């Protein structure tokens, strides 16, 4: 459960839920962030391995659970967007409640 068994195509970001809250977070340079725009993007083998190590370490420290790599496309604004619709929903929030989840929270801040 610490790291995803299979690695997706690159580039990829590391997505997880915080253990005590359950909030969706991404691995950024300095730690975990709720903002996908801050996510570190691994575009080569070394980068992916580094993220996998963060996944294992974050899990061991009880910071996160269910951490795994997600393949992304980099938008024109430089923000990584998951290629799969499931992960896109995970970075946004419920499509039927645009007032909730990251889609609302990040817009507000």
């Amino acid at each position, binding site marked *: 459960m610490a790291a995803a068994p299979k690695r997706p195509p690159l580039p990829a970001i590391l997505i997880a839920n915080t253990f*005590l*809250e359950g909030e969706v977070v991404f691995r950024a340079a300095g730690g975990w962030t709720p903002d996908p725009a801050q996510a570190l993007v691994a575009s080569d083998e070394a980068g992916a391995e580094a993220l996998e190590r963060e996944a294992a370490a974050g899990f061991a420290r009880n910071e996160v659970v269910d951490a795994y790599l997600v393949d992304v496309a980099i938008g024109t604004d430089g923000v990584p967007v998951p290629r799969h*619709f499931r992960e896109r929903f995970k970075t946004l929030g419920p499509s039927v409640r645009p007032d909730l989840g990251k889609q609302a929270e990040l817009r507000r801040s």
Partner: protein
Amino acid sequence: MYRYDEFDERFVRERVKQFRGQVERRLSGALSDDEFRPLRLKNGVYLQLHAYMLRIAVPYGTLNSRQLRQLALIGERYDRGYGHFTTRQNLQFNWPKLKDVPDILDLLADVEMHCIQTSGNCIRNVTADHFAGIAADEVEDPRPTSELIRQWSSLHPEFSYLPRKFKIAVTGAAHDRAAVAAHDIGIRILKHPQTGEVGYRIFVGGGLGRTPMIAKTVRDFLPKADLLAYLEAIMRVYNLEGRRDNKYKARVKILVHEMGLEPFREAVEAEFAKLDGPSVNADPAEAARIAAYFAPPAYETLPASDASYEAARAASPDFARWADVNLFPHKVPGYAALTISLKPIGGVPGDATSEQMRVVADLAERYSFDELRVTHRQNLVLPHVKLSDLHAVWQALVAAGLATANDGLITDIIACPGLDYCALATARSIPIAQSISQRFGSYERQREIGPLEIKISGCINACGHHHVGHIGILGLEKSGQESYQVTLGGDASEDAALGVLLGPGIKGEEVPDAIERIVAVYLRERVPGERFVDAVKRLGLGPFKPALTGAPTRELADAH
């Protein structure tokens, strides 16, 4: 309704403390995550897509106003101001934090509620007919039996680590509103054909999910006193013999299927014969103690009709339209049970805001002997309302956005959370429900179509019961996109049947058109008074096939 005594009270309090301790032990490392996960599940805590989810048991769907107000409070304090009522008569909160769950459990315990065994490989929250105690076709109220089972199954030392989840449903009526055939164990209360004694018929091996099966009868007639020993015999055979090598084959339905019904029955009867019944069963005084809580409320003696109700109907066509659809006849003259639809046109099926919960709680307290029900159709019921109060209740519901007149109609759609919330989902289900609801929003049109149950699941696990929907919709992933399979002819009633796949998957935005065409075939082909599902059973899938994709239906029309 049932009230906790000192023992029940201490039990839930200690259970809260136990869960608090489990979280602490997970943090300290005493429990590994693999060990903690089943423990949190057995207490209703899932990790979903965006957050944790907490599933709260509403045993056999009965609530009082104090409980519903507490749920409203929890929704505001620890969630985002709303909750989701499910087909299993539970309530789910979509945004709680794990660290808050023990505090939420304390609040629940304050009102005699809990999350015990709302998930995990154990005996789940017992469900029952939501018109228990109201329906005229009832042999006996199923709730005392359900409460006995709730207590017996709670933290059962032998059956808390089963091969898979285990669901029990009870009905006391001829018309099955509890879908007993779709449960691991279904219990029907009936009278012995010869002696007239009240007892149980026991079904085993129903279930939906990826291998849907209709339950089979293992015992035609079980004396009431033997219930717990007999259940223990079934559970033991399942616990010992159920498959543990493949979680998709671990349900009791697969065991019954692979063993064969007769050998399974023999194994259960042999175990039952060996069990020391008197030491396991509840004594009659205990059964009577529980049953006393479900004594009918103090109904007034009223005439069967009420002039003020008739006058209100005449004065307000909207009220009359709602009453025509959302009322259920009460066995006591002068009363009705009414369905509060949680399916506003275009809304999220089963969702209720904290404010709405409070409105319903107030109505239940004032007009329905402080009682309400959660239905497996994701609606609420006020079970005992005087005809003369109906108009006032309706007005309050209108003000709260809860007066949608669609009980049992095409917009009364069951939908699981799907990919909007669920980590297991392969596609969304709620937006599909919303688009169909919008398409068929007209009341007149819905009445013309008549009873039609649409059920939508966001993956093969079938939480939305799509297999037994008159129209079932299953969301899958096909080539990186959401795709929807449509089945026809499923039936969750006593004529239980599984729907048959109509054709290849279609895109989400094509679903409302497809449903529209399917309904058009029905309207064209039906004989007077024939329900949609009966027409499908009579006609077969043939006439409906072209409707799925809108292929030309010319030949079909010519052939007639």
